[in-house]
């Protein structure tokens, strides 16, 4: 019997996918796990992987063409069947295929730490002053966050959307190169009692996976080989090509929109059409924050280096917990205040951007936030986002400090009420105790949905952020 291969739904925002290349051709035999095609979705390029065995009988969707989720893109014949058998018309078509992302350009560098000395290069990682002392003195203080050249927070998923089709084990990034294969589990004592099949243990050992991070689906949560396979697939689920050089077309050329660009276009236009934006800006004296960051580094109080961006996220989270209207959505002629503070951080990738989300910031200390943010940034470079890490945001921060930006404003992510645009820390003349002095200041601008937020609230919210950043010791307590 033949079966249909349909366009799988790979994220909650995915509505259609485009075939980049067919990796199998009619007549090719397909084994379980074989890559069938490269598919471009709104979030990433993925490899369509077969769950079934058989022979590819017919390609229905040619390369370069798109089809909606669920559409039949190819027909596969089961092993031993005669060619030309009618496709399986069962009411619930099997899903013989899943997808894992592909790096279309595998030679792409995946190292995570760019330097502050190259401000023209948008960055996704957080340099420290210790690593780059020049940056602290040249008058243009990078805020520490890598920022996109333009901000299109389109890729942040609507928090009210249904969870994605992708299973979500409590994934943790594993750096294979950083982690030597663990020695074979000793078959006695507590370690051996960790519920996992011998086969799963061997597969995990080979892949360098810590078994305790894998969610088991066997009886009583036993980790099986399938769980390891799913875990590995999940690790590769979202692999983005990080932006190395700005993507620019040749003069006079016309570019067909990638799925990611289409989504950005759709959601940004929707935001500007539906949401009545207004903007409020405040200048923040960052003298204390710079000292605070330097002293944290000097004392090595935390394992994790704390960046300006982490400090700004923490200050924002504290301000959001006091001004809950800023952490809300205008829905169905009502205002829904979100129960948690999930802050999305825009990160530039090739041909667009993504917004990984730090969930439940209200419960996280500054080092917790730093740890999560660094992990997400590393993932933007190396891949391995879980669906959860790219969805559920309730507030977004876009930081263009690294580009030396004086001041900018951002477009609100649909489903959220506000977005904070963070510019560079710069040496500016400042009046202190009646004297003009050279101080370090930073402009922040909040874009607000006027249906939810009025000017007074926006102003107070910014004053709150300002208060925390100008008195940064409070960030260690909250």
């Amino acid at each position: 019997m033949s079966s249909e291969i349909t366009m799988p739904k790979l994220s909650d925002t995915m509505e259609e996918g485009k075939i980049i290349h067919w990796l199998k051709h009619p007549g090719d035999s397909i084994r379980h796990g074989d890559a069938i095609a490269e598919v471009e979705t709104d979030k990433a390029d993925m490899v369509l992987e077969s769950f079934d065995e058989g022979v590819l009988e017919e390609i229905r969707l040619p390369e370069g063409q798109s089809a909606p989720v669920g559409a039949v893109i190819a027909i596969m014949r089961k092993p031993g069947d005669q060619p030309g058998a009618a496709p399986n018309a069962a009411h619930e078509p099997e899903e013989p295929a899943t997808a894992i992302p592909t790096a279309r350009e595998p030679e792409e560098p995946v190292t995570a730490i760019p330097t502050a000395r190259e401000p023209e290069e948008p960055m996704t990682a957080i340099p420290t002053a210790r690593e780059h002392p020049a940056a602290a003195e040249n008058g243009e203080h990078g805020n520490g966050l890598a920022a996109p050249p333009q901000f299109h927070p389109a890729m942040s998923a609507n928090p009210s959307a249904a969870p994605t089709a992708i299973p979500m084990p409590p994934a943790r990034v594993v750096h294979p190169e950083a982690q030597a294969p663990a020695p074979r589990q000793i078959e006695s004592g507590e370690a051996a009692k960790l519920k996992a099949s011998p086969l799963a243990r061997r597969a995990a050992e080979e892949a360098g996976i810590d078994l305790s991070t894998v969610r088991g689906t066997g009886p009583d949560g036993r980790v099986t080989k399938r769980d390891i396979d799913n875990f590995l697939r999940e690790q590769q689920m979202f692999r983005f090509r990080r932006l190395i050089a700005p993507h620019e077309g040749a003069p006079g050329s016309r570019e067909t929109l990638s799925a990611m660009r289409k989504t950005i276009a759709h959601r940004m236009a929707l935001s500007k059409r539906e949401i009545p934006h207004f903007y409020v800006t405040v200048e923040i004296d960052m003298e204390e924050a710079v000292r605070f960051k330097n002293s944290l580094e000097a004392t090595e109080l935390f394992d994790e280096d704390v960046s300006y961006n982490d400090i700004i996220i923490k200050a924002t989270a504290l301000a959001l917990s006091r001004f809950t209207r800023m952490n809300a959505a205008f829905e169905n002629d009502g205002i829904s205040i979100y129960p948690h503070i999930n802050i999305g951080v825009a990160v530039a990738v090739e041909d667009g951007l993504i917004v990984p989300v730090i969930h439940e910031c209200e419960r996280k200390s500054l080092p917790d936030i730093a740890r999560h943010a660094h992990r997400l940034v590393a993932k933007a470079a190396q891949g391995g986002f879980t669906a959860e890490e790219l969805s559920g945001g309730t507030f977004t921060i876009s930081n263009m400090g690294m580009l030396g930006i004086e001041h900018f404003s951002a477009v609100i992510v649909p489903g959220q009420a506000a977005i904070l645009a963070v510019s560079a820390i710069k040496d500016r003349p400042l009046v202190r105790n009646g004297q003009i002095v050279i101080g370090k200041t930073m402009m922040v601008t909040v874009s607000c949905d006027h249906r939810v937020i009025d000017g007074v609230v926006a102003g107070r919210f910014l004053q709150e952020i300002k208060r925390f950043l100008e008195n940064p010791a409070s960030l260690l307590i909250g």
Partner: protein
Amino acid sequence: MANSRYDLVVIGSGPGGYVAAIRARQLEMRVAVVECDRPGGVCLNWGCIPSKALLNSAETIESIRGAAQEHGIEVGEIRVDFPRVIARSRDAAEKLSRGVRYLFKKNHVDLYEARGELTGPHSVALKPAPDKPAPEVSMLEAEKILLATGSGERLFAGMQIGDGVMTSHEALIHDRIPKSIAVIGAGAVGLEFAYFYRAFGVEVTVIELEKQMLPGFDAEVAEELRRAFVKRGVKVMLGHGYKSMEKRGAQWSIALDAGGQPAAVEAEAVLVAVGRAPLSAALGLERAGVEIGRGGFITIDDSFRTSAPSIYAIGDVARTPLLAHKASAEGVAAVEIMAGIREPGFDLLSIAGCIYCEPEVATVGLTEAQARERGIDVKVGKIPFRAIGKAVAVNQTEGFVKLVASRQYSEVLGCQIIGHRATDMISEVVLGRALETTTAEIGKTPHPHPTLSEAIMEAALAAEDEAINY
């Protein structure tokens, strides 16, 4: 006439249907079973159970003969009361069929002895079954329906049952020993009856179209079995396709085609064992919107759901392999999926296949050839029983254990055993597969000595090039 409403109506009370019904009761569904023949289906009445009773008689007579030849135990003339051999087999079937009735009663499953026919996605009409009183209820209403009607013997076109031509069904009650018999088809059923008749001194010829016995099985196992059959005096004709047969006097003459060359076999009786076909006709499937796929099997998804969302199908009527224990396991799985306490999916590769001739054959998972076809880098451990102490002591040195594992993880991909009591030994490997053990665990687990199962341990070690006794 009255209508009755149920959560689940199961059509068919074979090893799939009756097990599913009891499991559904345990999950507190209101359950009815519709059966047009005897409770227990083919397995209990016309398959596994009565045939194993006959094979036990065959093994007994073989061992008595062996006693005379090998143990120095003098045995007088062996006389066989063949009708009693058949009667004992019928007794076993009868006992177990009564057992199924008892289980239904104990579990409060309502049994309707009638022919069930779908009249819609939630309704089953009860029609009178042959030799049974008309049902008191004419229609059952059900939230969900489970089709478990099983399979029936297949015949080639033009074959006529009777006058010495039998399927396994007739052979089970045929209480006269023929002088000679031709067995068409060297699958499990054909070979079990070939062994049975040979044990009772019948001249047996096995005819098979394929180039090996047990098509689809491991080639080494098939060849080992062929040698064991030839040693017992069975004539095995491989690569011979059936063309036609006609009665000439007291003999049937079967015309064959051996790759273009005509051939013929004469025999007093003919056993047709060319496979089984799903019983999916006359169930009213069209009316309920249930689709049938290739070979007449009902099309199901991995939740056992048919194209009609309220109707499920399991066992022989849905897909191969046609095995009782597969049907039972599917029945439990289907009901648990319906109840929402189990994920969809079912590992067919962990279903063992067993053949109960002597030597027995038992297999699970992939053969070496199948694993290689899938592109898996395999390692194989093979241990002959003559290397195992117990096998030598009890004079059962025929056969071997072959364990197929992946080189990457030492995953146990499959196991083929041919030998005495192979069918009792395979469960170790089936459990091993279910628990995802590797050859390391099987090889390092001390197996009791002396037992035949040591061969499995040694085969696991052999896969790692660490066999001690071979």
